[in-house]
């Protein structure tokens, strides 16, 4: 069963207009790689020097992956990843 990745409005243009896309992989990093394979432009938007940019937040089940194992965090089959800008609030 594939993983659902929710795309924020700011990135939808680079994802063919989709609000969510399907991904494959055992970890957050692998799931994102499978998204990049389909939508190459997203890589530079989200990554810098092979890691998430500092103003990009990725959540799994509502939890920030930086509280878990970062890009190595395991994703269950049927899981949902949410990508959001980090600069909100305050």
């Amino acid at each position, binding site marked *: 069963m594939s993983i659902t990745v929710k795309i924020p409005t700011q990135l939808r243009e680079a994802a063919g207009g989709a609000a969510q896309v399907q991904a494959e992989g055992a970890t957050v990093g692998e799931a994102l790689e499978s998204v990049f394979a389909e939508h190459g432009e997203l890589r530079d938007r989200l990554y810098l020097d092979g890691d998430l940019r500092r103003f990009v937040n990725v959540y799994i089940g509502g939890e920030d992956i930086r509280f878990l194992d970062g890009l190595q965090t395991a994703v269950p089959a049927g899981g949902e990843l949410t990508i959001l800008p*980090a600069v*909100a609030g305050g």
Partner: protein
Amino acid sequence: MAATQLRCRECTTEYPLEARYVCSRCFGPLEVSYEHEPVSDVGSLRRRIQGGPQNIWRYHDFLPLAGGQPQTRTGLPAGCTPLIRADRLAERLGLGEVWVKNDAHNPTHSFKDRVVSVAATRARELGFDTLACASTGNLANSVAAHGAALGMDSYVLIPADLEEQKQLATAIYGTNLVKVRGNYDDVNRLCTELSGDRENWAFVNINMRPYYAEGSKTVAFEIAEQLGWELPDRCVVPIASGSLYTKIAKGFSEWIDIGLIDGEIPTMNGAQATGCSPVATAYAQGKDACRPVKPDTIAKSLAIGNPADGPYALDLARSTGGSIDDVSDQEIRDAIRLLAETTGIFTETAGGVTTAVLAKLAARGDIGADERVVLVITGDGLKTLDAVRDSFHAYEVDATIDSFEAAFAEQGVSV
């Protein structure tokens, strides 16, 4: 207006002045940039500001509003709060010159009225009719009140365990109060998602954030004006997201750049509660970005575990020779009392954090005897009464002189 565009702080990509807060290339935060005319006659500009309304709209030249000075006798104008010389506090701390900028003197009793006034006014210019926010409490009060004053619908999202006083002082304005089961960072995540779907809502601290943040510059403008167009040597400011802290410096910097005031940006000291100190921790570790934390502190208005402006707050502390310190919940309670006993100002827990950090800097010998220090007090003690409950003794007596005297005698106090 002098504001020209939104510019990404990370990659400098520019965008028009619309409801947009994040760079679509790199996800960096967008900030308003300005092109100010060089000031040919400083005295004339100062007099024009001094002749303006007794609220933040006297500084409208430096705010991102297309319509110039808003109607100043409508809405809920913020600002022009007292700057009080606090000699008794200075004496207790062994310092020379301390001033308290008391922003509890705003319409809803916190500095948030400044930022919401700017965001709400800009939101109306851009055609929005609904305000919304993710709040730790003070913002909730202010957004609900501004919605009422301006005749806009509002949706206010808060952590469900927020202080009761802050909930009551929000709901009374007739807003849609939404208590989210989670902490502030959960509320913020939900609002960030919602803001993508509700394009007709102006989330003051999300899609309106670049305009909102500019409102904090008015704290700096007022301090400089109230000190007779001079700069303080040092400011002590609380840090939640880091927006207020960095924008106060931006305010000073803009006025220095156009020649309205002379000098350098003050030494900027940031204040956090130990139970939510991602920026202080990154500062102590010499890092340039913050690792998010799960907040656990009585200073709920500062309980942001994932601070949006953390990297810029770290840069500012280092570039001005300041620091970012944290204090325990007990130090916060003690400092609320210290400020109250020496100045007559009763602040909420965030002000306790700021005052406790001032005391810490003084004890550490960081502050020179000849320094002029401004302590920025952001909110009112009546909003966080639990922090001081049971921390003092009251005399309960019958309505007789005998009972009155006996009550004091019991405590060993002669009256």
